[in-house]
């Protein structure tokens, strides 16, 4: 297993006492977590544990009723240029007149800006992002004409084009084919090796150890957080999931 990466100065994402409720029901009941820089961290927990909500609230996409989220020591809103987020399945109009390449180019908006022209350099950079996910051959396909896994790869390529330092991914492997899953894992690991931080909501307990360095066990509040080897243990997972004990997990 990969050795736990030592915490550098500032964590990629520092969440303190984050609270979210829908109506009267608390979804996040004071979550505190410090997610390391340069690591791949899995957020795991049972259905309704608030995994997706944690990402969205940390990003300010849904209002929190309390608590703070800092990225690289700054409020997330100020750090947004350094953050890329890939939702579970983008809620877009799949009939939109945009090709895979156009979608990836949208990831470069901060660089090209309002009046900036998209030139050869930008197109080449976007093509490079697509190739890293094995999607170069599909660059001129309309986004809705791709398979679900391919669409997911295009949205990852868009995140890649953002050149972010931390990637927040909501179930990147949900409902994708094996080829896509392999392509995404390879990409994420290479990003990690470049010193970037990956934080992904993950639901497949059997692949946690193979894919991730660190793990955040969540069930409305933080159950445990730390290196996979020492944290992803039967006892902690059992506490996270109630009494459903996953036998695949080391005791």
């Amino acid at each position, binding site marked *: 297993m990969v050795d736990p990466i030592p915490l550098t100065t500032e964590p990629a994402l520092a969440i303190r006492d984050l609270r979210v409720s*829908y*109506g009267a029901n608390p979804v996040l009941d004071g979550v505190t977590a410090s997610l390391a820089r340069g690591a791949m961290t899995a957020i795991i927990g049972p259905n309704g544990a608030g995994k997706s909500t944690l990402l969205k609230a940390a990003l300010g996409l849904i209002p929190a009723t309390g608590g703070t989220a800092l990225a690289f020591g700054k409020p997330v809103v100020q750090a947004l240029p350094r953050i890329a987020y890939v939702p579970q399945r983008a809620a877009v*109009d799949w*009939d939109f007149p945009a090709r895979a390449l156009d979608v990836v180019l949208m990831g470069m908006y901060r660089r090209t800006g309002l009046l900036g022209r998209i030139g050869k350099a930008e197109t080449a950079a976007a093509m490079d992002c697509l190739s890293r996910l094995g999607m170069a051959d599909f660059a001129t396909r309309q986004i809705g004409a791709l398979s679900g896994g391919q669409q997911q790869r295009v949205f990852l390529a868009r995140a890649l084009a953002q050149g972010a330092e931390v990637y927040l991914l909501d179930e990147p492997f949900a409902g994708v084919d094996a080829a896509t899953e392999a392509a995404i894992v390879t990409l994420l690991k290479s990003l990690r090796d470049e010193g970037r931080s990956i934080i992904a909501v993950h639901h497949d307990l059997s692949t946690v150890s193979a894919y991730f360095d660190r793990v955040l066990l969540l069930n409305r509040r933080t159950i445990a957080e730390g290196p996979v080897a020492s944290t992803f243990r039967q006892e902690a997972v059992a506490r996270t999931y109630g009494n459903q004990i996953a036998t695949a997990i080391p005791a």
Partner: protein
Amino acid sequence: MLADFWGAEFVPLTLPPLVIATLAALTCALPGNFLILRRQAMLGDAMSHVVLPGIVAAYLLTGSAATPVMLASAMAAAALSALMIEGIRRLAGTDAGVAMGITFTTLFAAGVLLLEQSGASSVHLDVEHALYGNLEGLIWFDATGWASLLDPIALTGLPPEVAGLALVLSIVAGAMWLVWRPLVIATFDEGFARTAGIPVTLLSAGLVAVTALAAVAAFSAVGSILTIAMLICPPATARLMTDSLPAQVRLSLVFAAASAILGTLIAGYLPPLIGLPGTVSASGMIAVVSGGFLALAAVLGPHRRPRSA
């Protein structure tokens, strides 16, 4: 002026528009309740626009402006527009709003062109009546006072719209009563309704047909604006007042009737009171009153807020 209110002028001049507007409002509000719940409100808009080309085409083809011919042709136009909307959605892959926008503007434009080019406009129909309605023109020549309501000979002189709308209202109400349960279930949960063996597609088509019938009948009496207003505003108002569907339907009828009555009276009696010569459009005023009810409900209605997830 107010002295005329109960006098001999009210019954021949004001009562018929009042009754016709009320019948039209009730007829439209009934199916409107389901259009709103199914997010098909704009279907009513589309229907009331496409009635015009249907009527014009029928007039040009048959040379007749008899009510049954008009009704049948307008129904045919409504059916055509429903097919067109669905066809454009499927073939061009547009969203429903665009498909409706294309359909009703094109058919309406075709109706206007037919009307202007054929010269029919000078004979029997004109675009203004289609848009404004002609409520004020529907008067009861044979009436001399309230007593005429009991006079069988005078009653035969009632504008034919009264009987026509009463008939359509009873058809619409009867149809809704017959399919009430399955319609409610299919509106709430289409998937469940399918598994429960409810003919969902047939019901949807039936709702479109009933809406078209209501729109057509109302259109020829009160014009297109009032038709749209009555299909949408009273049910929308009622929706903000209650959580119960039967109560919503009942309330929508109350708002529809109240809008029709108040609107007609305001249009006829307010301008003279404030010193304006003549009257203003009753159809327009009814639409404004129904919108006023909706605005009030949006500010004060006990169930105005959406349920949070």
